[in-house]
């Protein structure tokens, strides 16, 4: 008799959601996590500094309600954050839900063009969300099963949704989703900071530039839940705490400081997990929140066919977003930024070409000399003020590796770049934390520190995510499932991968 019905390896957002969902469906679940904290990348921080993720824009209400968290929970109902595109001449541009404004409150001339384009992409996003809330289409063994029927109905629904857009809009959709963001933006908007923001929002976390075909899909993905950006009350860890609480309420056993070393098999069926400290936990189902490559290493390659191993090895995951946390001397306003914008999302991406140029060095394993930056001013639990920034591009395979001097250089570049709009920022800084991909990888297991665990490119999406033949969450031996960001629909603090995986595991139950 097994100790548990299911084991989830890795207590990140997707692991917590997968485990909780199973728990709520009556399974006896254990979630193991190698670090002391649950929440994975979402709440990872160094020495009490700001967390790796610092805002929510794509969290799935469906995943939340499936684990018993009210999407309107006080922690989650924070005020939407506006985005500020930082300008070097002090004329910052503010993006609100209803349009684009100059920092003095007057309407920006490109406001309606921006709204039209974003609204169109949000419409497309809501159509595609139907696909995100279920396993990727294709790969059903029999069409006449319940799953096959459901899939057919879902696709039919998508088809009807597309038809409802009208003929010309449907054609446009089929063209736009395959396009590159550079062309789509510049067809409707002049080159400049408004276009630059859209370009930046299409490339966060991924190893692509605005000119790379397929980047429109990334932008649509980001806008898939409406594109509203919020910050949870109490920070990202408040959200992950909420998820931990939901897991406990669902009866899950949470085991921190427990690292899996091997997935145990019995006659090509999963029987449990062996931990690094020599313990054995048994269960007939294992959901792995780890990347496919690590998961396959834990079972040993012999249980997979050679094709699967080749495909797993070829999954691309080169993280490009580094985290640079700048500790501020005090809570005084940032230089060059109006007081009322202090707590908004700050972006440095003055043009599409700037974003593309920032990407160039990353292709050759160099860091950007002029990076694209997203920054939030945050306060940590100890009351300290920080500028929490995501800096792109800083490739995980940097030539020479992420040495201390490389990190120092990245921090310096970050401050210099931000100082172009926030003059004298350097004088406000009292300390720095540079968290690069190698560190993210060793702390969270994400391959290449990639926040989607596998590059979000057209050849690694939907039926091809994480790889051809593996899109339906089950993997290799009976009872083994993947539930991490590498699976369909992908990463971000979204939770759908974990939710879909848990449902797939339930469906596979005899």
């Amino acid at each position: 008799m097994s100790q548990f019905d299911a084991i989830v390896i890795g207590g990140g957002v997707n692991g917590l959601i997968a485990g909780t969902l199973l728990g709520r469906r009556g399974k006896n679940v254990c979630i193991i996590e190698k670090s002391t904290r649950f929440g994975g990348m979402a709440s990872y921080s160094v020495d009490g500094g700001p967390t790796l993720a610092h805002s929510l824009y794509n969290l799935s209400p469906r995943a939340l309600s499936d684990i018993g968290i009210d999407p309107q929970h006080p922690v989650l109902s924070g005020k939407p954050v506006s985005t500020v595109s930082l300008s070097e001449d002090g004329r910052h541009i503010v993006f609100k839900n209803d349009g684009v404004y100059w920092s003095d409150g007057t309407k920006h001339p490109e406001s309606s063009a921006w709204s039209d384009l974003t609204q169109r992409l949000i419409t497309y996003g809501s159509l595609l969300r139907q696909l995100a809330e279920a396993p990727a289409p294709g790969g059903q063994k029999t069409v006449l099963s319940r799953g096959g029927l459901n899939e057919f109905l879902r696709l039919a629904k998508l088809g009807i949704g597309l038809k409802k857009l009208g003929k010309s809009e449907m054609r446009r959709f089929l063209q736009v989703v395959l396009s590159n963001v550079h062309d789509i933006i510049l067809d409707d908007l002049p080159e400049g900071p408004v276009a630059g923001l859209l370009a930046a929002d299409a490339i966060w976390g991924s190893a692509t530039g605005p000119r790379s075909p397929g980047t429109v899909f990334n932008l649509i993905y980001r806008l898939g839940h409406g594109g509203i950006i919020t910050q949870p009350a109490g920070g990202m860890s408040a959200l992950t705490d909420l998820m931990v609480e939901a897991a406990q309420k669902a009866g899950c056993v949470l085991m921190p400081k427990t690292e899996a070393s091997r997935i145990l098999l019995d006659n090509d069926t999963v029987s449990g997990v062996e931990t690094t400290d020599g313990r054995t936990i048994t269960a007939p189902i294992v959901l792995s929140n780890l990347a496919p490559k690590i998961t396959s290493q834990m079972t040993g390659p012999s249980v997979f066919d050679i094709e699967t191993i080749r495909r797993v090895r070829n999954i691309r995951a080169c993280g490009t977003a580094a985290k640079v946390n700048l500790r501020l001397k005090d809570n005084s306003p940032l230089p060059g930024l109006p007081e009322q914008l202090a707590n908004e999302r700050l972006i440095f991406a003055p043009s599409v070409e700037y974003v593309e140029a920032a990407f160039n060095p990353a292709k050759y394993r160099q860091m950007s000399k002029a990076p694209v930056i997203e920054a939030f001013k945050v306060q940590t639990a100890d009351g300290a003020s920080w500028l929490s920034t995501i800096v792109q591009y800083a490739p995980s395979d940097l030539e020479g590796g992420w040495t201390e001097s490389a990190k120092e250089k990245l921090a310096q570049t970050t401050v210099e770049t931000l100082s172009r709009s926030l003059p004298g920022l350097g004088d406000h800084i009292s300390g720095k934390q540079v968290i690069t991909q190698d560190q993210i990888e060793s702390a969270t297991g994400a391959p290449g520190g990639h926040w989607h665990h596998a590059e979000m490119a057209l050849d690694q999406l939907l039926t091809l995510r994480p790889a051809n033949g593996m899109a339906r969450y089950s993997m290799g031996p009976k009872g083994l499932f993947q539930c991490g960001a590498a699976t369909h629909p992908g990463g971000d603090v979204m939770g759908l991968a974990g939710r879909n995986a848990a449902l797939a595991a339930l469906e596979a139950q005899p």
Partner: protein
Amino acid sequence: MTVENRYDVIVAGAGHNGLTAAAYLARAGMRVLVVEKNDWIGGAAVSRSLHEGWTYSNCSYVCSLLRREIARDLELPKYGLQVIPYEGGASFTRDADYFAYYSDHNALKREMARHSAKDADAYRGYSQAIMRQCRFIRPFLLRDAPDPASLHPRDLGELAYLVKKAHGQGSRELGETLKFWTMSIGDFLDEHFENDLIKAHLAGSGIIGTGLGVYSPGTAYVLLHHYMGDIDGGIGAWGFARGGMGAISNAIAASFKDHGGTIHTGAGVEKILSKDGRVEGVALEDGKVFYAPVVASNMDIKRTVLHHIDAAELPDDFTKAVRNFKIRGSSAKLNIALDRFPNFPAAPEHTSFLRGDLHVSQSLFELEKAYDDWKVGRWSEKPYIDMLIPSQIDPTMAPTGAHMMTVFVQYAPYDLEVDGVRSAENWNEKQRTAMAETVLDQMSVACPDIRERVVHMEVRSPLEIEREVGLTEGNIFQGELTFDQLFFNRPVPGWSQYSLPIKGLYLCGSSAHPGGGVMGAPGANAARAILRNETRHGRMKGYAA
């Protein structure tokens, strides 16, 4: 109106696609006129003598994609077309070595093993994958692309054919196909090979003619676009047309004329005439006017719609979509008359690979960097070059003992950046010469004596290609080959089946599905669409004559 200036169909532009469409229509018994702005025919499939004794294939320079169905239908061999395959090719290194590509499988395997044993083993899997994709795509080239938003029986039929073909591969292969179509040639090669030189050699076909880099998603498809042809059934083989690429156009023209067709050269279309949403004919630059109920334009979609039709005749959203159609100039061309065969110090004597395509790119990074230069409006510091010496095989191209060399150069921007200003106007003699010097430097990696061998050299920047041939921005495909501009999206969504919003107006050039290359498929497909839509029982509808 006299009978002399009335036709059943007028084709605007005597490129190989225009001629192909015209030849098919003439064979169907129609009275067809082809009008051409230049004094010669052929468009970008042309042979010209710019220096006495030498013949240049000025634009396109090798042949493979020409659909064999078309060659058969139009009896091109009878009208003088001979295509001679060449074997192999090579990439030279900067330290006097080379990687040779042989069409003989065993020789190729031995050569690969010289650079990497692992890659020699991997080649089989690689070529199988490519071949499978070629087999999958070939049947679609001479079919219409279905409109997914339409419920017309023909569209549904074509869609069903697509689904059947795709599904027929089995789910595993279908996944591989989807992946192949959406990935970059760089990633695809990285999955198979480890050696930089081998990868660089194979990657070239993934970027030729496009505004994409080797790591841009979708370039694996572009590679396919260069592999899906054949010569005498040898899929993926390339060859020279005897007499240069103009021989192809000349053979199609001869076939056309033999079936009663007329070609009018020396005056381009000034305006495509239309009234009440129906095409009426064309007015030429020399003042002549010809009438016909059907006009097929061999010009690219932008030139056709934005320069030669009244905007008022077209719906605004269509014009906007055409304006947003991406046609990017990315390549240049050097045609060189050589006094004798240049010296390739690295190559063994009497080797066959010098008769093929020669390159000097060292790695995928070098190719990707060449693309980065282009993005900001400069020609590549280390351009990708594809050079061939066809006179080794075809003695008609140069005097005895002398040779002719064709050098394709990528990347070269249309809007050249000089002193902070990006404009096509910046292409002047000085800039062209400077670019040629860059290319000659790059070429001397393979043949250091190249500069001494030059008797005459023609340098064509994207601007010259645009001015002479008429291709917008000098783009050789009449439009980027990216997913958003392929298949049912080509040229613009909703208009992928050759007809345009003015009744009787058709597109028969490479802007239409399936796209560029000396393939003839858009021309043949357009002719089929015209015959289907415009005739009833073999007679033109609504045409009294």
